[in-house]
């Protein structure tokens, strides 16, 4: 049995057998809420490998396009440094730093280029949040 299937089964037992047998409003609510948490965790775990691969592929695609843009026309120093850091780590903190750098250098980038670069980042963010919504909603 996979961990996600195990959690789903425990959640069902909590919801169907344990929760209804618990007396007292507060502990009963806790039992049902524990079932909800286990179900969501189970779904998240079940999708983790597929989602991680998709996140990594999206990050590569984003970096390819951002680097192509940078080769076409130089980026302000702060944005270029943030892009280099993102390329090195691929992590969410570096992506946050890149977004902050775009906003900070908006005047230097000009509205059209700022919109294009942020729009490209947002495409990646939308795909990521849509994946998380599969188990979070």
């Amino acid at each position, binding site marked *: 049995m996979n961990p996600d299937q195990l959690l789903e089964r425990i959640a069902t037992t909590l919801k169907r057998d344990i929760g209804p047998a618990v007396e007292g409003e*507060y502990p009963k*609510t*806790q039992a049902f*809420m*524990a079932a*909800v*948490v286990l179900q*969501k965790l189970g779904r998240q775990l079940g999708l983790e490998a597929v989602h991680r691969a998709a996140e990594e592929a999206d990050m590569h695609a984003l970096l390819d396009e951002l680097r192509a843009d940078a080769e076409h026309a130089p980026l302000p120093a702060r944005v270029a440094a943030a892009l280099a850091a993102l390329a090195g780590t691929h992590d*969410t*903190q570096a*992506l*946050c730093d890149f*977004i*902050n750098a775009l*906003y900070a250098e*908006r005047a230097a980038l000009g509205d059209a280029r700022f919109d294009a670069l*942020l*729009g490209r*980042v*947002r*495409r990646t*963010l*939308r795909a*990521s*949040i*849509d994946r*998380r*919504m599969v*188990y*979070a*909603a």
Partner: protein
Amino acid sequence: MSATTDARLEGRILDYLKSRLPAGRDFALADVKRIAVGWSHETWLFDLNYREDGRDVTLGLCLRRDPGNTLLRHLSSLEEQYRVLKCLESTPLATPKVYWYEDDTAILDQPFLVMEKVPGTCPSPWGRDGRAFYQAAADRGSLPASFTSTLATLHTLDWRAAGLDFLGVPAKGRDFALREIAKWRELIALSEHPPEPILTDLIAWLEANAPESEQVVLVHGAYRTGNLLIHDDRISAVLDWELQVLGDPMYDVAYVLSDLNREGTPLLSNLVDRDAFFRDYEAQTGFTIDEQRCRYYNALYAMRSVAFWMSASGLYASGRSDDIRLARTAWSVPVVLERAATELGY
């Protein structure tokens, strides 16, 4: 909390009330109900019966206690709630009369306040019964009118004369929005949640687009059904003074206009026709509803919601709370981030 603990606490509450009413005797608590657990302050409703000057007295009371790990603890203390309610007693706004605040933890282990139990009910707008209640009230028409006129009263009261400037007076211009962003950014930082790029985008966008606001009014911060006590088909008290701030009235109006509080009905806050709200609110306040500013504040509410859920799930993750409802909110963070992305147009 067990029944035994509750009974022990009731005895201590009674001892405290006796000390506050030295002219009384034969004290007893009746009809004690504990109505909230965990999320916010602990709340007890009860009647205090006693004799004074040869006559029987019944005092309906509400006691709120800080459990020590509430969601917005460092942003809105019971002491601040007490001060706000005390100030509001001199205004035309319907609020509970507040009696005492105590920060001496020797009395009931945690700080608490005691206020009047105002007659009325507060149906939850999220359940089937609540939805039916508000739909029936919407059809009758009195309660929707009271909802709007109470908000107008709130937004036109003289907060300076009432002594509410201790809440912090924003400067005209962008100061109010920037103060709110800073406040919620602080809560997010305290939650120690991992970085979220959509949130970074949202905050940067909010800072870059903070609107100018001319008026400074008392803003409730969560003005909706569920936070309003209802009696005889009208609002008998505005409750939940945890998010109040001095600032742009459109901050409250945006909350009223938000889809979040409609439960799928076309009625604002499950109750009020949109056109009637615009007409009556503008006539009673003299303010023009600025829908563009309201859209901005909706995005700011998305940031506030992210801050709530990060803080809530952080309380569980750090072991400061064992309430599993708080663990559940870890999955509310992406839900609100998705809404934020939509607000930003992607």
